[in-house]
């Protein structure tokens, strides 16, 4: 077996040093009734060629986004990732290292995390960011729990524009801890509706911009209303590229900003692994979940970086920790940091403008189709449209023609009563010819 270096002679010699008669003797503590006599019922080992062939067959049964017209967003976005990003994250020293518990020999990872935190703080307009969480949805759920700790209140108000999966992840984490999540009805443009639901029990309000329907919202008034009632404002963003064009959560009064960072540096990969961004006001620092990397000096006074404020964390506080989070999403955060370094402020702003321009082209093309109604009033790179028939049916029909038309709202939330609503998205990877093909196919489908 190519990954196992010990030879039969090595094994015999090592058993001799141990003083054990056989390998079986080393498993003597296992109850006899639970010892398997031979291999389990699975195929035997295979060479690279055979495994590659089998995996290739599975991969070939999927239709990659890049294979033709493609318009899905709704929490995961197809962007171009520069070749150097994937090269760098496969450096052995990044790929095959562990969480930086020994900082003297992990300065590469630690400095990257410091740069990552600095970038996330800049993007969100908030002073402190952690070293990443699993993804945007779990970051959102952690924000609810953090707000409950900070305010000592037990209700979170979730806007009807919050991604339904995020709302469900929040409920999962919150309800067992006695924190209720009040979810307002799904609506295209209703972030401000949370204001009426705020009361003296409200720990936080969760709003999303751009929201799951693509609507961008100035949340400043929501921030004022939340703060007046002693509640925190959590602003969710699933499309991190939008930070390059739109006012930041911090500028609009957010106390906590959470985001899905996949758009920068990370492929779609069917939903994971992704990277959760989490930033907050300085005063909330000691209630934050997850790893934090901080600057310090070594014994010779040279600058270095370490994991810090670990007294919040599970390996020190155990059942009193701010979260059970152990790892971050290190390699995805690395990809994010490298891609963001390549973009820089100028590149990110330009990328965001291109995304917006493509979405406007898509909007114009779809708006011209009889029966299609554009629902989203203000958008970045995705928006909702109403069709004269079931969105699922249309998506399936177009998929048969090689066009992936978008995400039906009913797939995310069947009870929303939006069976005829489709979410569509365009990015810099969307060619104008793809938009034309989509518009033509949709026109034909709706004419039938």
């Amino acid at each position, binding site marked *: 077996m190519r990954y196992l270096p010990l030879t039969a002679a090595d094994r015999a010699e090592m058993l001799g040093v141990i003083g054990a008669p056989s390998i079986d003797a080393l*498993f003597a503590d296992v109850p006899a009734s639970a010892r398997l006599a031979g291999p*389990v019922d699975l195929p035997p080992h295979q060479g*690279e060629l055979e495994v590659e062939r089998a995996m290739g067959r599975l991969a070939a049964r999927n239709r990659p986004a890049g294979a033709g017209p493609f318009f899905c967003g709704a929490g995961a976005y197809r962007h171009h990732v520069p070749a150097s990003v994937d090269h760098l994250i496969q450096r052995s020293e990044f790929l095959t290292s562990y969480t930086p518990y020994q900082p003297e020999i992990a300065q590469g990872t630690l400095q990257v995390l410091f740069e990552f935190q600095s970038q996330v703080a800049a993007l969100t307009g908030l002073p402190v960011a952690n070293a990443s969480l699993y993804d945007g949805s779990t970051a959102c759920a952690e924000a609810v729990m953090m707000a409950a700790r900070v305010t000592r209140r037990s209700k979170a108000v979730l806007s009807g524009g919050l991604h339904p999966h995020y709302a469900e992840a929040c409920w999962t984490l919150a309800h067992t801890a006695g924190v209720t999540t009040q979810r307002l009805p799904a609506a295209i443009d209703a972030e401000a509706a949370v204001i009426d639901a705020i009361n003296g029990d409200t720990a936080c309000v969760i709003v999303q911009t751009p929201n799951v329907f693509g609507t961008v919202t100035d949340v400043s008034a929501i921030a004022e209303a939340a703060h007046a009632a002693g509640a925190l404002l959590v602003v969710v963003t699933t499309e991190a590229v939008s930070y390059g064009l739109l006012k930041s959560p911090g500028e609009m009064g957010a106390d906590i900003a959470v985001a899905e960072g996949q758009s920068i540096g990370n492929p779609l990969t069917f939903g994971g692994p992704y990277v959760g961004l989490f930033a907050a006001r300085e005063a909330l620092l000691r209630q934050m979940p997850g790893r934090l990397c901080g600057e310090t000096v070594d014994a010779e006074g040279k600058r270095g970086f370490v994991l810090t404020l670990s007294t919040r964390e599970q390996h020190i506080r155990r059942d009193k920790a701010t979260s059970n989070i152990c790892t971050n999403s290190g390699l995805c955060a690395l990809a994010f940091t490298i891609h963001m370094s390549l973009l820089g402020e100028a590149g990110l702003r330009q990328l965001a403008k291109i995304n917006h321009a493509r979405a406007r082209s898509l909007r114009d093309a779809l708006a011209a189709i009889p029966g299609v109604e554009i629902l989203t009033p203000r958008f970045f790179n995705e928006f909702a449209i109403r069709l004269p028939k079931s969105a699922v049916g249309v998506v399936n029909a177009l998929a048969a023609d090689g066009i992936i038309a978008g995400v039906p709202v009913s797939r995310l939330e069947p009870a929303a009563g939006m069976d005829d609503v489709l979410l569509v998205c365009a990015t810099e990877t969307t060619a104008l010819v793809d938009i034309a093909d989509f518009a033509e196919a949709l026109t034909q489908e709706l004419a039938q």
Partner: protein
Amino acid sequence: MTMLAVGRPTRPETDIANETGLESHGNGLMQDEPLIFELGNWDKTGVDLPEAEFDASDLAGLTRESPIGLPGLSEPETLRHYVRLSQKNHAIDLAMYPLGSCTMKHNPRLNEKMARLPGFADIHPLQPQSTVQGALALMDELAHWLKTLTGMPAVALSPKAGAHGELCGLLTIRAALEARGDARRTVLAPVSAHGTNPATAAMAGYQVVEIAQTDDGRVDIADLAAKLGPDVAAVMVTNPNTCGLFEREVIEIARLTHAAGAFFYCDGANFNAIVGRVRPGDLGVDAMHINLHKTFSTPHGGGGPGAGPVVLSAALAPFAPAPWIVSGEDGLHLIERNEGEAAHAFGRLCAFHGQMGMYVRALTYMMSHGSDGLRQVAEDAVLAANYVKARLSTALTAAFPDGPCMHEALFDDHWLEDTGITTLDVAKALIDEGFHPMTMYFPLVVHGAMLIEPTETEPKHEIDRFCDAVLRLAAAAKAGDVARFKGAPFKAPLRRLDETAAARKPRLRWTA
């Protein structure tokens, strides 16, 4: 003077390295590396993007006017910066990385190549299911391997890490108990448990009560029996445990737990020791997470991403979270809500379907090893740990000297008594010997713990090189060479770092 054939000296005549008057701020090729925020011109970019017509009329005045504060670098500068940073890391590909409880084994590159196939890397989680049948088949196949290896009938794939898997398991248990109208409030876990166990139990809404440990490093059955009762929802036990020992009484632990109406949660962090030789389902386990980034070698990546699927017993299976994969006449389907066969699912842990990129890597790893290779994995991992234990016990003090260990060898710090040297000092001195230190001060039940996990992918000569280094240090410690330890590391990119200063006045981002 030592010279090679052409007359070029191959060794320095004297130690003149510090007398050159060099003003470089690094050590030869290992130079100090500034932050991206300190490099050059902020207006640069390393991507060439087309011009775009910009019209803000759909943005309602929400455009970002003030500077964001992000530096940009050209591609050559980016490459150089991150390659230089990478060189300041230790990694498995450089030398043995014997972090106990972390299973730092070789990461095959075939796994990376397969995860990057466009059919896996470039598919969207919400595109029509008819267009991702291969991805669903892969998840189904991974589930089959995990269920077969553990002897369990069901698996929830979506947890994104080990701790997330623990949460998934406890929430499943909670849902099963609530479904039978039997709300319970307590979770029992041994004092030696990973910190994530009590933290997870608290997150899932439970009070945590610790179970005592016996002198031979195992769960104290009498204490467990005394603490079990009608309020106990689950018993969380790591097996093999964090002392690197198999819980001999595991079947009795399961029996007592079930007799009390509770569920048996096994922390599967150490599954690498028994994969292919023992099925947790045969031990009475109700739920167990599997760290794909440990046993099945998805790369640790400097701290994630991981993946923590949870195998479940028949009693718990109906309550597993969405999504579920089911087979229909027209192919495989993902059930994404609490409906149909997933009507009793406890809900959703996270957006989408879990860590697909890790599923591809883990299945590639499993298929490469096969049932025979995976069994050999456990055998070689256990053999290597016992070999380390045998060799090092000549100078160090094993925490549990009697009987074999499993995949990791645990030592305490009694051997350092009266030397003035601590476990931390030994760890830092090991860096100067060219190794990543072992896990230190964990588990908490052993004084000055040193937990060494070599894994099955270390060749014997590398294990010997490591043991030789530890034994050299032990001899130096006993000879009173304190300076070698207290100042260590001397040969790392940085000397010991001041963690207290970092925490006292946190500086968590770059500021001008």
